[in-house]
């Protein structure tokens, strides 16, 4: 839903509401906005995966003496690790690279996000190549996280559980 309208349409009302609540120009404001925009995407992506898990596996868990929550914790979530990891990475990337909200809401250079900060450096004094270097450095954390998450992204974790 949130991705059906251009972000700028959301920025304007949020700008006025956050201004009145004193949340504009605070990191707390962004902490509210980013999950609100990314959690629906994450849920949407994950539900397809959860539905794809064979229902017999959860039933086998029930027969083995687990309760409903036990099944989710001991069977569904461990099996969903690849999906959880890739969705987490994706959502982190959305938030990390987010520029528009940070640009509109933040005035104080002390709390600039990285993307916002790089842009703030754009002036006639700073050479272009340094800005470019800043942009490259901004991608490094995502690279690191990806390398760490890669081991969860094993394909075919559910292979062999059920026939077919």
């Amino acid at each position: 839903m949130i991705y059906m309208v251009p972000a700028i349409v959301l920025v304007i009302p949020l700008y006025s509401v956050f201004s009145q609540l004193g949340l504009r120009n605070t990191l707390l404001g962004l902490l509210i906005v980013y999950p609100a925009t990314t959690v629906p995407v994450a849920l949407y992506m994950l539900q397809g995966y959860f539905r794809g898990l064979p229902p017999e596996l959860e039933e086998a868990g029930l027969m083995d003496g687990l309760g409903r929550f036990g099944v989710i914790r001991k069977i569904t979530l461990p099996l969903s690790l690849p999906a959880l990891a890739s969705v987490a990475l994706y959502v982190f990337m959305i938030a990390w690279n987010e520029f528009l909200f940070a640009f509109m809401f933040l005035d104080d250079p002390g709390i600039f996000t990285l993307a916002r900060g790089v842009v703030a450096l754009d002036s006639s004094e700073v050479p272009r190549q340094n800005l470019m270097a800043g942009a490259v450095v901004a991608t490094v954390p995502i690279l690191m996280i990806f390398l760490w998450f890669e081991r969860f992204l094993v394909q075919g974790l559910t292979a062999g559980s059920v026939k077919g």
Partner: protein
Amino acid sequence: MGQIELRQVRKAFGAVEVIKGVDLTIADNEFVIFVGPSGCGKSTLLRLISGLEEATDGAIVIDGEDVTGKPPAERELSMVFQSYALYPHKTVRENMGFALTVARMPKAEIAARVDRAADVLKLEALLDRRPKALSGGQRQRVAIGRAIVREPKAFLFDEPLSNLDAALRVEMRLEIAKLHRRLDATMVYVTHDQVEAMTLADKIVVLQAGRIEQVGAPIDLYMRPANLFVAQFIGSPKMNVADCQPAEGGLAFANGQAMSLPAADAAARKIGIRPEHINLAPPEESDVTGVIDVIEQLGSDTFVYVEVDKVGLFTVRLVGHVEMTEGEPAGLRFDRDHIHLFGADDRALAP
């Protein structure tokens, strides 16, 4: 111990009632098989016993205790799924011991029980593998092993062999039979396979459209089906059935031919005769005559399909290899000791 009792159990999904009042008692150590055509409710009935589905009405009693509303975890039953449903992120050992881990049993005890089950099922060499590194038959054995280690009150099998190839199915069928003898446990088994039902069961329950049609020992159902549905469902190839009318000293068929059967009930409207109880005979000794339509040679048996004008197609089973020609006329003689008669309501008439 494992006595299961169903009392007037009903199950509806929305407005559709799939189990329409089932009364059944499964004795301790009994091997009971539910059979029936697709959609007759046999799997649903098993899931009702397991607790994976909740009954809409009626009671399910296990060992004298009413478990109708209880979750599967409290029923102490094990289930083997058609698709095996092994946990892919666990090794064979962890899969088999999982229920015991959940029950917080000491590790040594779990290992001992898993080893014992692995020994029974010849799985020792595979204990540290994951399910994806196993073949179909091995996965099925692990699934059975997972059920055994819990030492449940009863085993529930939901078409456990239908995903295996023919040769493996025969092998696993034997293993299940041996297992039942060794464990002395109550087993409830759902299948649509005739042979599994006939060979494994102490008692077969034939279901149709959510109702029990007949309950009995396999050979009883074969010899004395209670109605036309059971008669045609049990036995392969299925029983030949033809319309008939009572006549002087026997039965008359629609093509004008008649057979002598002095004991025939005057209410008989249909005659049933199994393929193995028909013999080919010269025209003067035969009950009906027709033309050979198709011949199937199986080596051990020969199936001859004889089309009798206005009466129908009869399947005849001859033992061994018999040379015959399609299109030739053939006379059929029915074995008088194995004739089944059915009334207008499709109920079997006493012989």
